[in-house]
Structure formats: C-alpha cells, structure tokens
C-alpha cells in the first residue's frame, strides 16, 4: 500500500530499510471488537498505522429513518452496547429536546442512577479486558478480568431486576423511563455499591504496585492537549490530557446539576493518566448513585405513560442535538425532524469514533506491544464507531 495512504510516518532510523506491513486483523484477541489495523513496522516499532473500521456497520442511521421514535430506543442501546443506558439516553434526549417534552423529576433521577451504574459496569469491563490484553489470557490478565467481571455481574443483576435484561435494556422512552424500581431494589443497590467500593481499593493496590503495569502504561500513548481538542476526543481521553470537559458539567442534563461530584482531570495524557481518570470516575459514580437514591423523589416515571401504538410520538418540525457523558465520552444524537413519527435524519456522534481517530497520530513510534496497551486505554466499542 503506498505511503500516501498512511497518516503519519515516523522515521525511526533503524538502519535497515525493510518495512513490514503487518495486519492486526479484525479477528484478534485484543482488538476489542472488529477492528483492523495495518501496521507498518520497522523491526518492532510501529512507523505508521492505517485503521480500517466498518466491519460492524449496521446501518443505524438509515434504520433510524425507518423506525419510529417509539421503536428506536431499543436499537439505540446497540450502538454503545457496553454502556447501553447512555446510548438510549442520548437518542431519547434528542427527541425530547426537539419536541420540548417535560421529563418528570423521578424519571430524571432514575436515568441518573441507571447511567451511573452503567458507567460502573462499563469501567469494570474496561479494566478487565485491558488487563486481559496486557497480561495475556492464560496468565495474570485473566486474574483482573475475572475479578472485574465478578463485580460487573453484581451490577448486571441489579439491572436485570430493574428492566429484565442484562445487557441491552430498552429502559428509556420519550418522556421518561419505562420501568420503575421494584421494592427493595435501592437497598440492594446500596449494598452492591458499597461492596464495589471496597473492591476498587483492591484493584488499585493490585495494579499500581505492579511494576509491569506501571512500566507498560506510563509514558505510552501520550495525547497532547492540542491533539485531543483538534481531533475531538472526549471522555477519559480528553480528561487524561488536561482538558476539563465533561458533558455533565458543560451542559447538565437530567438533573446532574443537583449532584455533588468531582470530575477527575490528569495532565500526563498517557495510558496511566486515563487509567487514573477512570478509577476516580468509579468512585464518583458510586457517590452520585448514593446521592440519587437518597434524594429520589416520588412521582410519575414518564410524562407519556404507556406505549399504545408505534406511531404515537409525533415530533414537530425542527432539529436538535443532545449529548450525554457516556462511559467513553460524549455520545450525541442529532435528529432532524419533519413532523412525522420517524426522524428525517438521525446522526450518531459516537464517542469511540472520534476517540479512535486519534490512533494514527499517537501510535507511531511505539512498539507493537504498546499498541495493545493504547487500544485498551482508548477503550473503543465498535457499535459506536461503525454504527
């Protein structure tokens, strides 16, 4: 493949003029999904990377034009399938913005609880799979993976009690939420959250005192402040590079202004900084869940109760963009409506799409093993990238 197709070529000065183009194919134990990287290698150092995506392009935007506002939220959860609550929330918020639908306070608090619990579950999976990639599937990586999945299963049990599903929920609808909390659920959530908080201490102790982990993540995959803003990354990637940008603070949605939490920002910009940001986010999510449960108001869970017909939500002509802080960054949905029951145009702003776009700029100069560490710390979910 000619060099004009690659983004940035770093002259390593290896001496040898043999460059190897290696394919880290769509099926790879650590590619986090279907993602293909064509690496140009000089020895063990990556000199250029061409990222090929689209292996999971499921026509979300076109299907969104054929499905009504009532039918689509279940499909919306399949964009960021690891953090399905936030994906649905982005779509439903966009519709509510255009239609100027009032969401009752209880529904807003329920949405916050669901979103933050989902963030905890998603970060559990992130930590597990990242360490699995770095440590090897048969060795130390599987340790952290199994521990994190154990915690994640507890949160998924809470979701199963709430909505009936473990992974893809269909919890949000236009105007509120679809399910209310069952009796005894908030006690169980408090117990789960207390338990997880103690376990986070364990993970931090396990990883941060491990020399291999620290050496593999410090100074690796540095995203500078300018690059982060230029490319449009969001979430832990941009907060790990020193920019204090969190959608929950920039444009508070769903009563996030009522809660007291800290947005972690690190300045180093490397994998270790992003790891620290996510570990602090764990604790802050737990804090928000506790506050939301304490302050959960009584009231209806939706301003449009019940789904009677598929075309019942009609949105006036207009357009709107709503964004939420997903586990990976800013997930946004831009809807153009022409007055019918279906959108005229729907665009997903996937957090992982912009996050992945930074890869061709930060990977060159690193070794192949560092590519694995960087991929894990970028934490892409390909439902969001390819939509």
């Amino acid at each position, binding site marked *: 493949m000619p060099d*004009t197709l690659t983004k940035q070529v770093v002259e390593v000065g290896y001496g040898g003029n043999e460059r190897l183009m290696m394919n880290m194919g769509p099926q790879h134990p650590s590619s986090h999904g279907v993602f293909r990287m064509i690496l140009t290698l000089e020895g063990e150092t990556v000199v250029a990377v061409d990222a090929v995506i*689209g292996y999971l392009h499921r026509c979300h935007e076109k299907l969104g034009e054929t499905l009504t506002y009532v039918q689509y939220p279940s499909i919306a959860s399949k964009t960021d399938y690891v953090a399905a609550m936030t994906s649905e929330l982005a779509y439903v918020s966009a519709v509510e913005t255009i239609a100027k639908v009032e969401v009752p306070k209880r529904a807003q608090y329920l949405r916050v609880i669901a979103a933050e619990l989902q963030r905890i579950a998603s970060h559990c999976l992130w930590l597990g799979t990242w360490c699995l990639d770095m440590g090897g599937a048969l060795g130390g990586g599987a340790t952290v993976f199994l521990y994190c999945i154990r915690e994640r299963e507890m949160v998924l049990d809470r979701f199963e009690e709430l909505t009936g599903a473990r992974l893809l929920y269909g919890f949000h609808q236009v105007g509120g939420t679809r399910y209310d909390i069952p009796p005894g659920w908030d006690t169980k959530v408090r117990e789960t959250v207390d338990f997880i908080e103690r376990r986070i201490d364990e993970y931090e102790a396990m990883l941060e005192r491990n020399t291999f982990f620290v050496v593999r993540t410090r100074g690796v995959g540095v995203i500078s402040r300018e690059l982060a803003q*230029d490319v*449009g990354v969001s979430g832990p990637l941009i907060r790990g590079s020193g920019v204090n940008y969190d959608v929950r603070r920039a444009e508070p949605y769903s009563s996030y202004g009522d809660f007291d939490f800290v947005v972690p920002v690190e300045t180093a910009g490397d994998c270790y900084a992003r790891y620290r940001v996510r570990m602090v986010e764990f604790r802050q999510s737990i804090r928000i869940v506790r506050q939301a449960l304490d302050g959960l108001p009584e009231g209806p869970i939706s301003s449009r109760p019940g789904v009677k017909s598929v075309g019942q939500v009609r949105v006036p002509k207009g357009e709107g963009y709503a964004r939420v802080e997903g586990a990976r960054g800013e997930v946004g949905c831009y809807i153009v409506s022409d007055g019918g029951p279906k959108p005229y145009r729907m665009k997903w702003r996937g957090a992982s*799409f912009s996050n992945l776009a930074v890869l061709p700029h930060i990977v060159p100069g690193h070794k192949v093993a560092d590519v694995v560490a960087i991929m894990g710390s970028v934490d892409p979910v390909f439902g969001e990238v390819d939509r």
Partner: protein
Amino acid sequence: MSTTAADASARIRETFGVEAAVDGAMVTVVVPRELWTELAHFTNRVLGCRYFNWLSAIDWKEHGLEVVCRLENLDAGLVLTMRTRLGPGETRCPSLAGLCRGADWMERECYDMFGVRFEGHPDLRRILLSEDWEGYPLRKDYAVDTPFAPYR
C-alpha cells in the same frame, strides 16, 4: 479569551455579513460554500473554537445536500454550528482536514454515506463500507434494504 454567544454572533456578522442565530450558548451560522473554509479558520483562530465535535450532512432531496459542522470552545462554553447548502446536484465541498485533524475521519464518513467530495482532503476514501461499494447509502434515493447477493 472570553467569548459569549452574542459577541461571537456580532463578530461573524461584521466579518462575513451573514446572520448568526443565537440560542443560549449556541450560535448557528448558515454560509454559502465559498465562505466555508474562511469561516472555519475564523472560528478556530479568532473565536477560539478549537474542539472539533462532528461534521455530517443532510439530504434535502430536491434541495440538495447540506453539510453541518459543530465546533466548540471548551473554555468559554461556546458552541458554533456551521451549515452550508451545497445546492441541488452539487456534491463538492471544501475540506477542513487541513485545519482540524478531526475532520479527517468525519469527512471520509460523509463521503462514504452521502458522496460529498471534500476538495483538499488528503485521503478521501470510504471508511465504513468496503472500497468497492456502489452507491451512497444515506441519500434519500437509496433503499435501506438494497439487496447484495449472495449475502442478502
């Protein structure tokens, strides 16, 4: 630099002569295609909108395509949405890839889905679909269940 939405709207009006609608912290500007790159440079340098959020297009059937771009100034909390109508049958649009590295993949996706040719883009090829795909799916005359033997 503290730039409010009203301030930004006034500066755009006096520099380019186009009206900029203000809605809270969001400024929406509709420009003709010729002013697209200039406005982007102005927004980046003068208004400090260095955060490239997204770029996409809308197919307005007989009115042609419209390219929409959203830029933000994270420190001031200013959001700027730039829109340009390409006109019926027209698919060329100047590229912002030289200005913002985030425009790279976003414009490739726009080309892939709508067929908008971004002039000045270093590497305009399909990103989500395979290189030999025919047709631009998100256009209104493309059916969602177009067959593709033998897979569907």
